[in-house]
């Protein structure tokens, strides 16, 4: 495999991996925020009683 093809392959893999890392990282962050909010809402409801 020539150098150009190897570099093309590495750049393509990098683009796909980075795209998925950003998207899944954001989804995970949203999930954590969702869970924290549920916990805070339950605590707030307990305090209001």
């Amino acid at each position, binding site marked *: 495999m020539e150098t*150009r*093809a190897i*570099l*093309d*392959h590495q*750049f*393509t893999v*990098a*683009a*796909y991996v*980075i*795209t998925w890392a*950003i*998207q899944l990282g*954001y*989804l995970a962050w*949203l999930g954590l*925020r*969702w869970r924290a*909010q*549920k916990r*805070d*809402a339950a605590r*707030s*409801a307990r*305090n*209001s009683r």
Partner: protein
Amino acid sequence: MKKVAISLYAAATAVLMVWGFYQAIYVAPDERTMHEVQRIFYYHVPSAMVAFLFFAISLAGSICFLAFRRNRPLWAQAADAWALAGAEVGVVFCTVVLITGPLWGRRAWGIWWTWDARLTTTLVLWLIYVSYLLLRRFAAGPQVQTLAAVLGIFGALDVPIVYMSNRWWRTQHPAPVFGGDSDSGIKDPAMLHAFAWNVVAWLAWGLLILALRYQVERQQQKFAAQEAQNALDA
């Protein structure tokens, strides 16, 4: 019932993502001049399209917030949540565009970045919406939503400029995929299919996280209202 529908949608999105990946990597042929690195296109362009759509949703949410904030406060809060969700998820997709683009450019042009009209206007768009998110995150007071809505509307004005930039000015960026002259666009049917599947897949994925972000914001609004009520009752 709602949970089943969401699960089915998420499963269909996952299947679409896998199918889109398969089409982009294994089915679409190598491009004649750029070879394998051209496959970045199947993630780069759909991400840009979805980012534009979500900035348009943010624009609509911002306009509705300004229109309803005095007469219909509940509608205004929902509109504000859509504006924020659209801006934030749009920034996520725009970030993907700004990272995958230079990776492609480095191999195709030999440089990571150039201050050409398409790249510069896209960077400006990203910076405007990042400032929108920073305003939402760090500013306090009753006018934050209104200020953010105005900034969101101004930010969206950059979207048509980004879209038209490689039509209005001579740019290093490739010619438009759609709506360009007869020489531009995708000619190979296999490439067109791979591109179309990835547009559908990324749109489905984007809508899923947009809906989730909207729900998180609505929950946050309800929590803030509950806290305010608790403070009044105390």
